[in-house]
C-alpha cells in the first residue's frame, strides 16, 4: 500500500518540476550557426487597473521588434518579446525581473511603468547589468536626482537603469511655473496621497510655487482609496485658495475635484501625469472643466516625428491606445535594438558579454526617436526633458503648453 500511494503523490510533483525546469531553459537553441534568437523583455502592468497603459508599453516595444526583424536591423539575430506582468506591484516586479535575469537570452528590458516597481526591478536588473529603459518612471530617487535640490553630489544608484522621460522634480516646478506665471494664481492649496510619486510631485510643486511668489497653504494629505473628501474641502474652503495642486492619481483626484466643486470651492485642480487620464474626466464629469494636468513628453499626435509610428501602431490594430507611453516605449526599445546591433556587430552575441555591451551602447545612444532626441546623461536620465500642460475643455484634455522647465 505504501509504494503506490507515494507514486501517486510524487508523479505530479515530478511532472510539475519538469515543466518548470523546461520553462527556465528556453531559447538557448540555434546559437551555433546562422540565426540566433535573443529576447527583449518588457515589465509592465498587463492586468488590473493600469493594464491599458501597460499594454500600450508592450505594444510599442512589440512594434519596434517587429520592424527590427523585418528590416533585419541586427544581423543574424531574431529578436523576440517576453512581456512580463508586474501587476503594478513592487514585489511582483522583483520576481519577474529575476525571471528575466535567469533567461540568458534576455539582453535588455523596457519598463516598468511605475516608479515604485522600478525601485525593486532596477537593483535586480543592474546586478546582471541588463539595460533597462523606462518610458515613464518619474521618481527622482531612481537616478538619485533628489540630492540636486539640496545641493549634494549626484551618484548613480543603478548602473544599467535608464529612462526616456522627465522626472518629478521637473514636472512639479514646470506645473508651478505654469500656475503662478501663466495663470497668475496667488493662493495655492496642496493635497497629496502620501505615495512616493504624489508626495514628491507635490513637494516639488510647492517649493517652486513659493519661489515664484505664490502663497502656499499647509499641505493636506489623503489616503489612497479614500472617497469622502468633504472634510478636507470644508477645511480648505475656509482658507480661500484660488488653485489646488494634487499630487497623486486620477481615482482620488476625480472625486476630489467633484467634491470641491459640489462643496462650493470652485477652483481648478491641477495634477501630474497621474491625473492625465480619460477616466478622470469620465468620473468627474462637468466638474473637471478647467482642471489641468502635466504629462511627460509632448502629445504624440502633435509630433511630426511620430506620424509614421502612429500610422504603424494603428495598422497593427492593437486593442489598447498608444498613449500615454507607447511612443516612448517604442523609442526605448529602439535604443536597445540599436545598441544590440552594435554589440552584435562587435561580435558579442551571447552571455554576459552581450548584456555588458548593450548597456554600454545604450549609454552612448544618440538618435532621433519619435518623441525627440534619445540620449542619456551619466546617471541614466534623458537629456530631452519635455513636458506638456493639458487643460480640460468640453470633456477632453487639450494641450495648453509644451516646453521644458527652466528653458
Amino acid at each position, binding site marked *: 500500500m505504501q509504494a503506490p500511494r507515494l507514486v501517486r503523490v510524487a508523479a505530479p510533483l515530478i511532472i510539475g518540476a519538469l515543466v518548470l525546469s523546461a520553462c527556465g531553459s528556453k531559447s538557448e537553441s540555434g546559437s551555433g550557426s546562422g540565426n540566433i534568437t535573443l529576447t527583449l523583455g518588457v515589465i509592465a502592468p498587463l492586468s488590473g487597473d493600469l493594464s491599458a497603459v501597460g499594454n500600450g508599453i508592450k505594444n510599442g516595444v512589440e512594434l519596434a521588434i517587429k520592424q527590427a526583424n523585418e528590416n533585419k536591423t541586427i544581423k543574424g539575430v531574431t529578436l523576440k518579446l517576453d512581456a512580463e506582468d508586474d501587476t503594478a506591484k513592487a514585489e511582483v516586479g522583483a520576481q519577474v525581473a529575476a525571471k528575466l535575469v535567469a533567461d540568458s537570452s534576455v539582453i535588455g528590458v523596457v519598463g516598468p511603468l511605475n516608479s515604485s516597481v522600478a525601485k525593486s526591478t532596477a537593483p535586480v536588473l543592474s546586478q546582471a547589468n541588463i539595460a533597462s529603459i523606462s518610458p515613464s518612471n518619474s521618481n527622482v530617487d531612481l537616478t538619485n536626482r533628489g540630492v540636486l535640490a539640496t545641493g549634494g553630489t549626484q551618484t548613480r544608484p543603478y548602473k544599467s537603469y535608464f529612462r526616456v522621460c522627465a522626472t518629478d522634480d521637473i514636472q512639479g516646478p514646470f506645473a508651478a511655473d505654469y500656475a503662478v506665471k501663466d495663470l497668475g494664481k496667488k493662493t495655492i492649496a496642496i493635497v497629496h496621497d502620501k505615495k512616493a510619486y504624489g508626495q514628491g510631485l507635490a513637494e516639488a510643486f510647492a517649493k517652486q510655487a513659493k519661489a515664484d511668489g505664490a502663497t502656499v497653504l499647509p499641505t493636506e494629505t489623503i*489616503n489612497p482609496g479614500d472617497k469622502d473628501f468633504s472634510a478636507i474641502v470644508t*477645511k480648505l474652503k475656509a482658507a480661500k485658495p484660488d488653485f489646488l495642486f494634487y499630487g497623486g492619481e486620477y*481615482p482620488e483626484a476625480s472625486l476630489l475635484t*467633484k467634491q470641491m466643486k*459640489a462643496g462650493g470651492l470652485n477652483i481648478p485642480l491641477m495634477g501630474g501625469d497621474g491625473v492625465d487620464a480619460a477616466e478622470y474626466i469620465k*468620473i468627474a464629469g462637468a466638474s473637471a472643466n478647467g482642471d489641468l494636468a502635466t504629462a511627460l513628453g509632448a502629445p504624440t499626435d502633435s509630433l511630426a516625428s511620430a506620424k509614421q509610428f502612429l500610422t504603424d501602431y494603428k495598422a497593427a490594430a492593437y486593442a489598447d491606445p498608444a498613449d500615454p507611453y507607447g511612443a516612448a516605449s517604442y523609442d526605448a526599445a529602439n535604443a536597445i535594438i540599436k545598441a544590440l546591433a552594435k554589440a552584435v556587430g562587435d561580435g558579442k552575441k551571447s552571455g554576459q558579454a552581450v548584456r555588458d555591451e548593450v548597456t554600454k551602447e545604450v549609454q552612448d545612444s544618440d538618435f532621433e526617436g519619435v518623441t525627440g532626441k534619445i540620449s542619456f546623461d551619466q546617471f541614466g536620465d534623458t537629456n530631452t526633458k519635455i513636458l506638456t500642460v493639458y487643460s480640460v475643455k468640453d470633456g477632453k484634455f487639450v494641450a495648453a503648453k509644451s516646453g521644458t522647465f527652466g528653458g
Partner: protein
Amino acid sequence: MQTFLQQLVNGVVLGATYGLVALGYTMVYGIVQLINFAHGEIYMLGGFGALFTYTVLLPGGTPVVLALVLMLLGGMVVSITAALLMERFAYRPLRGAPRLAPLITALGVSIFLQELVRNFYPAKSPRPFPQLVDPSHQFSLGASVEISAPRLLTVVVAVIGMVALSTFVRRSRTGRAMQATAQDPDTARLMGIDTDRIIVTAFVLGAALAAVSGLASGLQFGTVDPRMGFLTGVKAFTAAVLGGIGNISGAVLGGFTLGIVEVMATQYAPDPFSGGAWKDAWAFVVLILVLVFRPSGLLGERVAARA
C-alpha cells in the same frame, strides 16, 4: 462655528455609511461569533449590482425614483445572493471548527469576490456610477452649512435602515429568535428555534443594509470600484468594535462616532498631527481609549455565559 457645523454634517454622512455596513458585521458576530471580513465585499457587490441594474436592465428614460428603487432591489439581490452563497458554502461547513478557520476563510472569500468583480465586470476601474441624484443640488442647513442631495439621501436611507432593523429585531418573532440565538444558541435550539435559519437571516439582513450603503455610496461619489469594500469594511468593523461588537445600537453609535472623529481630526487636530494624513490615527486613538476604559466597546457586548 460654521466650519464646525459643516464638518459635523460631513462626519454624520461618513458615519452613516460606516454604521450601515457595521450592522452586518455586528449581527453576524453576535450570532455566530464570526468576523465576516468579506462583508465589505457584500457592500461593494451592492454598488455593482445597482450599477448593473441601471446600465443593463433598465431601459433609458426610466423615471428617477423608479430607477432608484429598482437599482436598490438589484443591488440587494446581488448582495443577498452572495451572502447566502458564502454562508452556505464557505462558513456553514466550518461551523464548530476552531474560530481561526472561518476567519481565514472570510479573508479568502473577500479576496475571491474582489478579484471576481475586477476580472469580470467589463469596464475599467473605477467605474463611473450614474448621477441620478444631482450632487450640485445643495440643501441649506442654516448659514453656509450645506448638504448635497445624494449625501442627504445617504443619511436618510441609513437612518431608515437602522430604525427598520432595530424594530425588526425587537418586535418580530424572527427578531426575538435572533436575540435568543445570540444569547445562547443551544438553549435557543432546545426552545424550537431553527438556528440555521436565524443565522441565514442575519446574513441576509446584513447584506440588504450593505446594499443600501453600496447604492448610496455610488450615488454620492459617482464611482464604484472592486476595492471599495476593503477600506469601508475595515472602518465599519472598527465602528462595530468601537460601539461594542454584537450590539446593534452600538454599531450605529460606533459608525457615527468614527465618522465624526475622522472629520474633526482633519480640521482641528493640533499640528503636526492634523489633516487627512492623521485622521485614521486619531480614529484609532479614540478606539484604543474606548477599549482601555470599556473593553467591550461603548455599549458593551451582550456577553452571554458561554461554555
